[in-house]
């Protein structure tokens, strides 16, 4: 049998290394190993604040619709609750006061989604793919609407 030379060893090590890097980047390292490692998938409610939107967006977002990430195109979960309030913005009046006032025709929507989050040391990943972090801007869509909001809360169940 032909002996393996150093070049063969190097190639095999590179290939194995490539498999390991690919698997860990795709977030399936724990899942693919699966032996003795606890997979921490947890149910969570993610609360988003969608600000300064028109009535068209309010009407197009509906409870039950599935939200997807615009970045990864993967589903996050269904909308379970929505609260709509007038959008308020600040005005500096002529006497130097800062007041908050309603902006006509604009709204703030608090959207709650149900999601399954993979808990890793570095963060929470919806369906193991999309990273969710409080205070980050999250661009998302449903079948009928495309918008963005700030993640206000990740409530682990």
């Amino acid at each position, binding site marked *: 049998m032909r002996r393996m030379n150093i070049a*063969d060893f190097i190639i095999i090590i590179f*290939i194995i290394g490539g498999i390991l890097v*690919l698997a860990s980047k795709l977030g399936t390292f724990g899942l693919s190993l699966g032996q003795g490692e606890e997979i921490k998938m947890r149910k969570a409610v993610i609360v988003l604040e969608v600000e300064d939107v028109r009535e068209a967006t309010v009407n197009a977002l509906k409870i039950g619709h599935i939200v997807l990430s615009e970045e990864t195109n993967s589903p996050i979960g269904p909308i379970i609750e929505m609260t709509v309030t007038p959008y308020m913005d600040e*005005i500096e009046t002529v006497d130097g006061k800062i007041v908050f*006032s309603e902006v*006509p025709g604009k709204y703030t929507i608090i959207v709650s989604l149900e999601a399954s989050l993979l808990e890793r040391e570095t963060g929470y990943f919806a369906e193991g793919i999309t990273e969710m972090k409080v205070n980050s801007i999250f661009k998302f869509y449903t*079948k009928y609407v*495309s918008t963005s909001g700030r993640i206000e809360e990740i409530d682990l169940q």
Partner: protein
Amino acid sequence: MKLINKKGMVFEKISIVDVIIILVIIAIGYYAITFLTTKDVNKISKQTIQYTFETEDVNENFAKQLQLEGNLYNSSKNYFVGKLIDYKVLPYEIIVPDLQNGVFIKQVVEDRFVVRMTIEANTDQDDYNIRINQENIKVGAMFPIKGKGFASYGYIVEIKEVVK
């Protein structure tokens, strides 16, 4: 001819080590393709919709160029996006702060208008998307539109499914 001879050659042509390397590369490729391609193959259905496309801050001549039953296109990609079946012309209003009273008010801009076009099109739909050719139709989506004699940017503000 043996499968593997004493020298470790498969069918006396290629080293067993090379065969192992090739099989590992094929396995990586298979893994990458199956993982990265869409797992849930959504069923595509055909459905006619009417959607409202709104463009604002246009002059009075814009609406004069609109033709009912005229074809409309994405003006940068040239995709067909539907037929114009209706339109409304409304005053263009902007929101300004009333610094005296500390409130926001709407003010009409003279000689400028908002045009809302109702467009009908056949779409391909799955669980997450509505498409006309390669144009994603979603409320809040912005794209440039053109017809015979006009072009503008605007937003989709409403989508309705048509039952025929």
